[in-house]
C-alpha cells in the first residue's frame, strides 16, 4: 500500500539546508497497523506529511496504492488526499464554526456528494464513534476526546485506504486515549491501513509494527507477532 524508497527531505533554514529525512525505506502492506516512534525532531511528522501528500520530498520514490506520488498537480494531490487518505491530528483541526456533523460531512462535500446524503452518512459515522447525540455541537462544546472522535469520523467518512494520525492522543488523558485507540483498532479490523505517529509506548504496544526514527534514519522496524496473536 505504502512504499518509500530512499526518500530524502531537506528543509531550507535561511541559507542552510537541513537534512531531515535521510533515505527512508519503508514498505507498509494493506491493512497493517503501524506506529512510528522517535524523539522530538526525528522527522516523524515530516514523514507522515509526505505520506499524506501534504508535503513533497526531494529524493527517492513514494508509491501509494501502486501510484508514484511525485510532482503532482495541486488538483491531483487534492484528489488522492480526498479518495485514499484520512488524517487525524494532535490538535484535532476541526472547523470551529461548523457542527460535529458538518465537520464529519466535509470530505464528502469535496467528493460532490449531495447535501442530504452527506448529512446522513455523517450521522452514521458519528454513531460509529459514539457521538450521535453530539451531532449539533460545535467543537468548543466538546471535550478533547470527543473532538478527536469527531476527527476520526471525519477521516473515515470518505472510506480511505490509509489513515494517517500524527500524535492523535498527544493532547488526551489516559482514559480518553484508550477510547480513541480502541477506535483505531476497530478501523484496523475493517482492513484499513493505519499509521500512527506517537511517542507513547502504550500506544505503540497496541500496534502490530513499530518503526523507530532517529535523526531522519530508520533505527528499527519491528513486527510484534506474539502480541498480535494474543489480541486476536
Amino acid at each position, binding site marked *: 500500500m505504502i512504499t518509500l524508497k530512499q526518500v530524502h527531505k531537506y528543509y531550507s533554514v535561511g541559507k542552510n539546508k537541513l537534512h531531515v529525512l535521510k533515505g527512508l525505506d519503508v514498505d507498509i502492506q494493506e491493512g497493517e497497523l503501524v506506529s512510528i516512534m522517535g524523539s522530538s525532531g526525528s522527522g516523524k511528522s515530516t514523514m507522515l*506529511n509526505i505520506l*499524506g501528500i*501534504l*508535503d513533497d520530498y526531494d529524493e527517492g520514490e513514494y508509491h501509494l496504492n501502486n501510484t508514484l506520488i511525485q510532482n503532482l498537480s*495541486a*488538483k491531483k494531490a*487534492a*484528489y488522492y*488526499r*480526498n*479518495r485514499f487518505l484520512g*488524517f487525524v*491530528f*494532535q*490538535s484535532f*483541526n*476541526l*472547523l470551529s*464554526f461548523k457542527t460535529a456533523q458538518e465537520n464529519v460531512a*466535509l*470530505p464528502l*462535500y*469535496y*467528493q460532490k456528494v449531495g*447535501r442530504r446524503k452527506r448529512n446522513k452518512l455523517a450521522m452514521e459515522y458519528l454513531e460509529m464513534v459514539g457521538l450521535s447525540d453530539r451531532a449539533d455541537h460545535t467543537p468548543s462544546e466538546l471535550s478533547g476526546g470527543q473532538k478527536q472522535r469527531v476527527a476520526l469520523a*471525519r477521516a473515515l467518512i*470518505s472510506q480511505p485506504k490509509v489513515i494517517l494520525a500524527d500524535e492523535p492522543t498527544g493532547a488526551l488523558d489516559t482514559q480518553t486515549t484508550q477510547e480513541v485507540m480502541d477506535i483505531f483498532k476497530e478501523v484496523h479490523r475493517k482492513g484499513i491501513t493505519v499509521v500512527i505517529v506517537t511517542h507513547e509506548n502504550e500506544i505503540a504496544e497496541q500496534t502490530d509494527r513499530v518503526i523507530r526514527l532517529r535523526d531522519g534514519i530508520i533505527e528499527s522496524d519491528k513486527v510484534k507477532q506474539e502480541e498480535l496473536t494474543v489480541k486476536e
Partner: protein
Amino acid sequence: MFDLDKWNEIYATVKKHKLRTFLTAFGVFWGIFMLIVLLGAGRGFQNGVEESFDVAKNAVFVWSRRTSEPYKGLKVGRRVQFTNDDVKAIRNEIPEVDVIAPRNGLGGGFSVNYKTKSSSFEVNGEYPDFLKVRPAEVIAGRFINMLDIEQKRKVAVIGERVQEVLFEEGEKPIGKYIRIRGISFKVVGISRGKGDSEDIKEAAETIIICNTALQQAFNQVNKVGFFAFTPKEGIPAVVIEDKIKALLAKRHSIAPTDKKALGSANVEKEYARVQGLFFIIGAFSWFVSIGTIIAGAVGVSNIMLVIVRERTKEIGIRKALGATPWSIISLILQESIVITALSGYFGLLAGTALMEFINSMGVKGNFFANPEVDMTIAVSALATLIVTGTFAGFIPARKAARVNPVEALSDE
C-alpha cells in the same frame, strides 16, 4: 459554484466582521450611488436642454441685412430683400435642401381685435412646412395648408394666450373672424409651442397666418423676410447653409466678401456643441464613479486578504480533506463578489430611488428635466460591479489557493 454551504460560510464570515464588512461595502455602495446619481443628473440636464430646443435639430435660418461693401456699382448700405423667386431658385439649384419655409413678419404697431376686445400680438406669415422646422402641437382645428397658400386664404392659427385675451371663456374661436390691422382673418386652429417655458410663452402670444395672404393683404407682395431650411437626411446643415448663402448673394448682387449682408444661424452646430458638452459630463461622471468603485474594491480586496490570513488554518484543513485549489479560490472569490455585488446593488437602488424621488417632485427648470436611470446605465454599473468584485477577490483568492497545508496546520 453557488451552493448552500458557501452561502453559509459567507454569512458566517460577514457576521464575524460586521463593522469591517460594512465599511468596505460602503465604499462600493457609494461608488455605484455616485455613478447613478451623476449619470442620472447628467441625463436630466441633457433632457432639459434637448427639450429646450424648440426647433428642428438640423434647422438653418437665413435673414437679410444691409450690405457692407459696394459691388457691381451698387452702393454700401443697400437693404437686401428676399423674394418668392428665391424660393424657386433654391429649390431648383440646391437639391440637398429638404424644407424651405419662408416667413414674413408684420412690423410696426398695430392691434388685433375680436368684437370689443383688442390687444397687440406678434403676427407671422408662414408656410405649412413651418411645423417641420419649429414643431408645435395643433390642439384644436388645423394648421395652415398648401391650399391656403395657393388661394391666399385669410386664415389664422392662434396661440392659447391669444384665445384667452380675445375670446370669452367657453367661446370657441374656430370659425370666428379676428381683425388684424383692420383686415379680417378666419381662425382655423389653435396651436401650442414646444421647447422651454420661454418658447412656449412666446408661441402662446403669436398669431400664425397664411404667408401668401400676409404678402397680399399687407403690401408685401413678392417679399420674403426670413427663411428657415432643413437639409435632406444625411446631409450636414452646414452644407446647405453655405450653398444657400452663396446662391442668395449671387442673386442679390452681394459681394462674395461681404460677410454682413446675410445673417444665418445653424442649429446643428449649436446642438453638436451641446452634445459634446454632455459627452464630457458623462465621461467625467464615469471617471469619478469608477475611481470611487475601484477604491471600494481595493477595500474589499484588503478585507478579503485579512480574512484569508485569519482563515489560513481552516484552508489548510480543507486542503488536507481534499479541497481542490479551484474550490478554495471560488470560496474566496464568491465572497468578494457577493460583498461587492450586494453593496453595489444597494447603491443602485438608492441612486435610482433618489432619481425617482426627484422625478416625482417634478423638479423641472429651463435646463433640467426627467433625470433618469436607463437600462444601459444599470447594466453597465452591474457589469462594472462584477468585474471589480472579481478583481477584488482575485489576489486574496490566489493567496488562499497557495496556502501550504503543512505550514497552515503546524501548531505554532
